[in-house]
């Protein structure tokens, strides 16, 4: 069985983004870019399943500009076997990405697709569920534990009240939550080896997918600023402020 792992190139999670002065978006020039953290967890999970003998091949795929090759090389350095870049300079919104991935799934016929539950740039949390819908596959999203069997998967999910365990028929879509695993670091020898692994490039047109954006961003603004707070010297002063100034207790 093949496992397909879509990965996204995003602004690194340690960077505090700044909104552009003309309010058209956030400043991306000279900003450190990395693989989305939830996608790293997805790659790690696919590799673990392969190492446990549950999968024969791990294929990383990314949709976006040429620079996404770097993200794919990271996945290859972690241990993915090969990579596919669906190259597009158009802004790709979640529905377009899901359609591109469906076309890749139709071509590659994986038994499982593991994705990050959310990208930390647009915070949309959509692609996995949309891909499941387009394929008419079952889904188990926000996974914190995955056990694969023949024809099904048992997935523990993080939900608002605690945890839930689902059994889904495979092929299926799984999206990863934070506590599923701790992604490995790519070692230098593996980074070198990754440069020789196959990386295929496709265009949306090759896959017959219309990727035109559906949502128009009218503006991007800074969040409201909180007014500066005060430091209190002791618990007595804190209680006094909460009672008499903020009036919240």
């Amino acid at each position: 069985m093949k496992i397909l792992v879509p990965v996204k190139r995003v602004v690194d999670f340690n960077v505090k983004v700044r909104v552009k002065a003309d309010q058209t978006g956030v400043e991306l020039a000279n900003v450190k870019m990395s693989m989305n953290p939830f996608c790293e967890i997805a790659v790690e999970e696919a590799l673990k399943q392969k190492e446990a003998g549950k999968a024969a091949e791990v294929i990383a795929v990314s949709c976006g500009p040429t620079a996404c090759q770097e993200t794919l090389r990271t996945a290859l350095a972690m241990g993915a076997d090969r990579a596919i870049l669906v190259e597009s300079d158009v802004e790709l919104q979640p529905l377009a990405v899901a359609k591109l991935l469906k076309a890749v799934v139709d071509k590659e016929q994986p038994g499982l697709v593991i994705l990050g539950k959310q990208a930390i740039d647009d915070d949309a949390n959509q692609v996995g569920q949309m891909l499941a819908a387009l394929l008419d596959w079952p889904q188990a999203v926000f996974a914190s534990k995955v056990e694969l069997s023949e024809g099904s998967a048992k997935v523990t999910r993080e939900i608002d009240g605690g945890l839930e365990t689902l059994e889904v028929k495979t092929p299926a879509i799984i999206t990863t939550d934070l506590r599923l695993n701790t992604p490995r670091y790519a070692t230098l020898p593996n980074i070198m080896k990754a440069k020789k692994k196959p990386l295929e490039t496709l265009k949306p047109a090759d896959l017959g997918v219309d990727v035109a954006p559906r949502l128009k961003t009218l503006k991007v603004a800074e969040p409201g600023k909180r007014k500066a707070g005060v430091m209190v010297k002791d618990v007595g002063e804190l209680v006094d402020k909460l009672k008499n100034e903020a009036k919240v207790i």
Partner: protein
Amino acid sequence: MAALVIAEHDKQSLRGGTANAVSAAAKMAGDVHVLVAGSGARAAADAAAKLAGVSKVLHVDSPQYDGGLAENYTALVVGIAKNYSHVVASASAFGKNFMPRVAALLDVAQVSDISGVESADTFVRPIYAGNAFATVQSADPIKVVTVRSTGFDPAPATGSGSVEPLAAGPDKQQSKVLSQELTRSARPELGGARRVVSGGRGLASGENFKMLETLADKLGAAIGASRAAVDSGYVPNDYQVGQTGKIVAPELYIAVGISGAIQHLAGMKDSKVIVAINKDPEAPIFQVADYGLVGDLFQIVPELTQKI
């Protein structure tokens, strides 16, 4: 045309920000209908009919919706979505699960986690962990929208809509719920609590969270946590406040031993009053706190509990 809100409920009552989603939907369309699906959930359907702005509740009485399975909910919603201008749900774990599936089958975009409604087709939503807010316009014939509860007051129970039965959709049988492990607590639900006491890595153990529980119980507060505290196993996952955990905006948020990573701030910085207690005067949490107290939380928390 009306907006359709998909209710999250526990059969007896509405849950997970459904009443807030109704408020948001009322700003998008002139009329709001609510879908309540599940077995024996008439009480929840009646509660939905009482929400201001709701003219009709569609009540599907069938056990195939009891687990909140995305495949079955999607099939049901897609079957009736064409009658509506908007399909709306709370951006809770329930809503996030099936709503993008609905959008994809309708071949429309989803607008996730909105914090504001500008007009019937234009919405405001946080991006980059709330470090920016995007105003987005949808040209799709049906708007599929999930709602951040803290952006909208819950609709009050002052209405008198009707409840009408609706037939179940197909049972997809692609997945099933094997078990649920839900955290049981007498404290308020974290997502909607008026006061929240949250702990971080500074607590150093799960045992030490008991100290926060005493404080929370005295304040009638819910308990939250940073990702670090959850990852360290001090508390269960559903305590996590942050970009990818729960988004809260209580009247009072007390952050204890939390340094304040941007991912945590994303989940709580809309709180009305923020108190930070931390031994490190340089901790970023102090930049968003209304009241900061530098010191040893193991002395401060018991003293605070005693004095309030």
